[in-house]
């Protein structure tokens, strides 16, 4: 009694496909083309210039720094959000009296706009700001820093703010994953004499893999696409010390060098794809083995 596939009409796909193709895929494809041109706001004629834009990206110090910063931001936030996210989720999965309240508190910053959190942190991160005053008050003045104006430190500060805001979201996904693990596994392990670290390593981590994979992918892709945090906290400064790929694209757009801007975007696209596809394949393999 098999129902013909023809009964599921393709018409229902069309609205989503149309909107997605016109406003997402088409710009991506035209971007690929414009990456190889000298497209500028102030010029009518567009000339094909081969790999020139990409050569410029790899020789321009600001653009190289922007890519390095993007990589630092992505790696630091992936590690921070996931390690802290798992730790919080494991803690808040225990029988605690205040667990519902604590879950809500840790999750709350991630529902707010990046703009809101970045502005709240701006005065606290100044040299005479709240954070440095706290360090001095507890007798650790050596820890106080020029968080947003020290070129060597600034991208790490921005990453810290992002970890502060979004770890709760990762925690929520890990909690959902933890709750789908049957308690019987842990009971069996305890009877066999396994300690809590052993249970964590041999039961929790393997069964949490789907959640770990989705979180790694979300944080990695989000990290490589970072824009708003840098835009609001530092505007790319001091100098160009905290430029990332996202702010470089805005700058190219403002300057009218659109060919270069799309080339930077194409490079970001390539980087995200090259890193994310192997991760995806890994995820799929895990799904099959379960």
């Amino acid at each position: 009694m098999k129902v013909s596939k023809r009964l599921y009409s393709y018409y229902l796909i069309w609205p989503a496909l149309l909107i997605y193709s016109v406003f997402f895929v088409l710009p991506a494809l035209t971007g690929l083309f414009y990456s190889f041109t000298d497209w500028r706001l102030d010029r009518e004629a567009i000339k094909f210039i081969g790999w020139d834009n990409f050569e410029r990206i790899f020789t321009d110090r600001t653009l190289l720094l922007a890519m390095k910063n993007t990589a630092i931001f992505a790696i630091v936030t992936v590690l921070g959000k996931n390690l802290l996210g798992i730790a919080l989720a494991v803690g808040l999965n225990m029988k605690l009296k205040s667990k519902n309240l604590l879950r809500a508190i840790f999750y709350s910053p991630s529902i707010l706009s990046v703009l809101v959190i970045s502005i709240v942190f701006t005065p606290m991160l100044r040299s005479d700001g709240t954070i440095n005053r706290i360090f001095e008050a507890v007798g650790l003045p050596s820890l106080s820093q020029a968080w947003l104006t020290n070129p060597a430190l600034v991208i790490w500060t921005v990453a810290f703010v992002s970890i502060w805001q979004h770890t709760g979201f990762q925690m929520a996904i890990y909690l959902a994953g933890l709750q789908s693990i049957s308690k019987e596994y842990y009971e069996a392990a305890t009877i066999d004499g396994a300690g809590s670290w052993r249970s964590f390593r041999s039961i929790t981590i393997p069964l949490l893999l789907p959640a770990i994979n989705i979180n790694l992918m979300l944080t990695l892709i989000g990290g490589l696409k970072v824009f708003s945090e840098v835009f609001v906290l530092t505007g790319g400064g001091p100098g160009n010390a905290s430029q990332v790929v996202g702010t470089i694209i805005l700058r190219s757009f403002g300057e009218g060098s659109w060919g270069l801007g799309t080339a930077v975007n194409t490079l970001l696209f390539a980087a995200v794809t090259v890193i994310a596809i192997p991760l995806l394949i890994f995820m799929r393999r895990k799904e099959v083995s379960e």
Partner: protein
Amino acid sequence: MSFSRKMAWRNYLVEGFLILASLLIILPLLIMLFGSFMTSSEVLKFSLRLPEEWKFSNYTTVFKEGGLGRAFLNGMLITGVSSILNIFTSSAASFILVRRETKWSNFLYMFFFMGLIAPMSTITTIRVVQWMGFYGSITSVILIYASLNTAFSVFLYSGFIRSIPKALDEVAFLEGANTFDVFFKIVTPLIVPVNATVAIMVFMSVWNDITIPLYFLTDSSDWTMPLSVYNFYGKYSRDWNLIFADLVLTSLPVLILYIFCQKYIVSGLTAGAVKG
């Protein structure tokens, strides 16, 4: 007995530590909240204290000076319409993608899925919208948000629809129903919880976003709340009490939504992200 006592001690220890850690989250938010009721000189200490006098007038000042009434309505319009459009188009598409198990539908699923990975090409999107003749309009922003969220929504819907037995459709088809009947009368009622999840996720991401309005809304009278707040932040850089009041106001809609709908967020994440 001694084992369970040891467990209890460990729980108290973890609980105490987590309560301390939660202060790190609460304190900055309270500095913002209390600061929004202070005078402009009192707030400049940026430390945690209650305002000497609760100045509710900050909020009325901000609402008038920041043009927030207009920005609120713009945000509601953009967020509301793009969420509804996204829910309708993505759920319909996911239904067919999941049910037709052909190579072509697998390909289309991956085609949509790439949208989760690929970054948006902002500059050429502007170009495409210019070609179509509505660059700078609220309509363009609504369509862009609907397209940007398609990938994530299709991902969530597909995970959920896969768990609905196909036998339900088959019975309806045998009774003479067509695809549209089956989708609207059988599948739509069953996916109401996912609709809620998608609505909340899209609402939050669109409401909080500043990137798209920054590039696409050329006229400040079309701006949404966060972008108006950003503009206000630039202009009133000395009046942190007003800036904080502005931040609280722009956060209120998502906060209210979260308080009423939090169970859908967790159930949706479980259905889509963890199991899907």
